[in-house]
């Protein structure tokens, strides 16, 4: 029998307590995080092997350019003949490295459910309507300040089968490249004030309170476009060394 939300919430609380007791800061989730059941057989048990080779290929990374995106790729509301349903939003922010430098000209990709919480994916069969005017995928290159900007609709929450009555909070998936392959990041952006945040084992897998808060965007009224859309701001900091860090003696 699948676990209840109450038992998953108790597991989440125990994981938070264990993290607090351990006393060292951890920014990323532990890959083996039992409240997220799918992680159980899909994480290595051996420690990762450290590579400290300054000649490692991973300190460089793939390049993307104007051929890889079209102007419309940043506007998820204009990909079909009609208007998508839902609350129209702008999501924007900067992509930075750990030294605070902008990540320029790199690829940002997003995907999300529609306003009803349904993905345009055959595996999502839960009874919420598809929207013929919304697919939910976008991509963009960051500009010289590291800024990205998407126009989309606010995604809905949706049920999943981790446990009985499991619901994912509304989120937008992000995929990011830095100047080095080591800086690669795939993550999810959440919305402020969402009542589902404490119940979600995927978000709660980030056991550090401050780190978890960095996954939640900020509502920014100045980003709203009158009569058109509301706005959220979300800055992203990529982890991992790049060749330039080595040169600086890190």
């Amino acid at each position, binding site marked *: 029998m699948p676990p209840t939300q109450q038992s998953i919430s108790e597991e989440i609380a125990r994981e938070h307590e264990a993290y607090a007791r351990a006393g060292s800061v951890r920014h990323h*989730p532990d890959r083996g995080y039992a409240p997220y059941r799918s992680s159980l057989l899909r994480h290595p048990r*051996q420690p*990762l092997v*450290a590579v400290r080779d300054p000649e490692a290929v991973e300190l460089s990374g793939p390049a993307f350019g104007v051929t890889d995106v079209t102007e*419309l790729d940043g506007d998820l509301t204009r990909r079909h003949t009609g208007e998508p349903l839902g609350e129209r939003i702008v999501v924007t922010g900067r992509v930075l490295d750990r030294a605070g430098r902008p990540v320029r000209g790199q690829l940002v*990709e997003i995907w999300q459910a529609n306003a009803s919480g349904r993905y345009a994916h055959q595996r999502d069969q839960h009874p919420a309507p598809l929207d013929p005017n919304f697919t939910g995928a976008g991509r963009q290159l960051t500009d010289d300040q590291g800024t990205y900007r998407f126009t989309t609709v606010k995604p809905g929450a949706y049920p999943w089968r981790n446990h009985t009555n499991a619901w994912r909070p509304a989120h937008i998936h992000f995929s990011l490249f830095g100047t080095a392959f080591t800086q690669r990041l795939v993550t999810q952006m959440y919305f402020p004030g969402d009542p589902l945040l404490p119940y979600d084992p995927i978000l709660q897998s980030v056991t550090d309170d401050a780190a978890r808060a960095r996954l939640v965007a900020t509502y920014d009224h100045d980003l709203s476009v009158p009569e058109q859309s509301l706005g959220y701001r979300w800055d992203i900091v990529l982890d*991992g060394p790049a060749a330039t860090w080595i040169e600086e003696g890190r």
Partner: protein
Amino acid sequence: MLPTPSQTVGPFYGYALPFPGGGEIAPAGHRDTVAVHGRVLDGAGEAIPDALLEVWQPAPDGSRTGAPGSLRRDPVTGGFAGRDGVTFTGFGRVATDADGHYSLRTLAPGGVPYLSVCLFARGLLHHLFTRIYLPGADLAADPLLASLEPGRRGTLLAAEEAPGTYRFDLRLQGPEETVFLDFN
């Protein structure tokens, strides 16, 4: 600055991240093309049908700058135009099929004997890095391989099945767990 935490790629990236020709890193019809393929398996030895592999590598001349054009777009339809058939971008992206299988076609990298791999999957909260070492090159001189216990080194070595065709399975867990890497 403090990093943004990782989250799983989830099960629904299929209409956003993979692109046609994502595994065709070698320019179309290039005579030195090699094929690399294998399966991604979980701790029970079962196929992972919703994994995504990315590959990054130097060009055959050893250049590590890469080149744009992996995801080349068609400005008329807004869809994917495919790679231009000439440029070596050094980047590939391929999703596993229902049997957990992936395949890539590329050119051997210059200067190093390996392809860098970044693995994503539903259930995997933070991506994993590993390397596919191709046989034939000077593997004895590689500092990472030299640092590994002999029992685990083999998990990074692709096996030659036929001339120009290499097999490389990724095991996320279990007795033959693949060596995964940390660069931080």
